[in-house]
């Protein structure tokens, strides 16, 4: 997750992201596409998503460059530009969703009756990336010290990597489950919400502006 100044309601973010990544892609061949991108960019800037937008595009920049060049040499300038547009719109579509705070998505989901285990699973995924990466690094180092190389002994390498990793996952999940149980977490029964995530005027304005822009440009494209 990349922190935006003040992220909007998670559901609005998801809806906008889905609309942008799906309907936005239908517009890449249109001449007005740069205007469409700029309009979306301006709305993001107005709502404090500037930093996230820059980071998202910077992350995709190598891909835009490589694929743009491949398309340029294989099919010419127009295809190359359209390829770059495709990546740009995907990068822009991801901006609201990568700024969602996982906990607010979980809370908002609980408010509309989504089972708590779904949110819990999602939170585990967000929180455990660094932990699992660290475990994987440790196991890899241990394998290297013992002189096992993937290209020399792939079977032995795979065995020496996956088995300790799964044993660690097993023990981490057991410990996590136990610690959650001691905090009275269970799949059954009702649980109260510590905080609620409510819709505000800002959320409505963000959603309305972006949906309006998307629909306006899609209609412009359809009119042609």
């Amino acid at each position, binding site marked *: 997750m990349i922190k935006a100044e003040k992220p909007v309601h998670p559901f609005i973010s998801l809806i906008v992201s889905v609309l942008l990544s799906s309907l936005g892609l*239908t517009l890449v061949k249109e001449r007005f596409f740069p205007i469409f991108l700029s309009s979306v960019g301006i709305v993001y800037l107005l709502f404090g998503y500037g930093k996230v937008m820059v980071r998202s595009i910077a992350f995709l920049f190598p891909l835009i460059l490589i694929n743009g060049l491949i398309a340029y040499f294989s099919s010419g300038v127009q295809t190359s530009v359209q390829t770059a547009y495709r990546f740009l719109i995907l990068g822009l579509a991801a901006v609201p969703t990568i700024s969602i705070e996982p906990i607010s998505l979980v809370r908002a989901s609980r408010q509309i009756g989504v089972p708590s285990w779904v949110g819990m699973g999602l939170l585990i995924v967000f929180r455990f990336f660094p932990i699992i990466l660290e475990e994987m690094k440790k196991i890899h180092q241990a394998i290297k010290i013992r002189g096992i190389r993937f290209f020399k002994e792939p079977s032995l390498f795979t065995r020496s990597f996956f088995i300790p990793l799964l044993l660690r996952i*097993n023990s981490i999940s057991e410990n996590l489950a136990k610690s959650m149980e001691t905090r009275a977490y269970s799949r059954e029964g009702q649980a109260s919400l510590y905080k609620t995530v409510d819709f505000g005027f800002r959320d409505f304005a963000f959603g309305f502006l972006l949906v309006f822009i998307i629909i306006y440009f899609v209609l412009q494209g359809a009119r042609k």
Partner: protein
Amino acid sequence: MKITFREIVFLAILTVVYLLFAAIPVPLIMSVRRLGIQSLLEAVQYGIFATLAARRVRKYGSISIMGLISGLFLSFMVPVMGFNQIIGALSAEIISFLFFGSYQRKSAISLSACLWPVLTIPISGIFNMVFQDRSLSQQIGNPLIFIGIIIGTLFLAYLGSKLGHKISDELERAGKI
């Protein structure tokens, strides 16, 4: 049989490992536009981790839970990919259930693991048709190559599943699953 809370925690953590491995070919995947290549490049990962999940939690729903959690996570970046994951995993398990009825046999697990990557292909195709204005024939190109991609995906997922079974067998012998 209901999947317990402890099993969900295990599946969620296994999903993290799966996502880390699935991220390896992503730069390549994003640059390829031929239908099915994405699934082909991810097939081994699907095979290994779906098998590991179903061997540890031998209940229908285990792979779908993995699909749901990974799908929700991926939908933060590319919503369509998330949708793909969820529908693919769910349909693979439904087909496997219709054939076998339980995960007691290894072949039932392998079937789900092999079908999951293949069943994400139709959804990608529909998405490209609707939103990228690319006809099915444009996406498929040479039908023989497309059939080759599907067979290749099934084969790689099967190899992954074999590896998953091998690892699970060792863990079973050690009394860890």
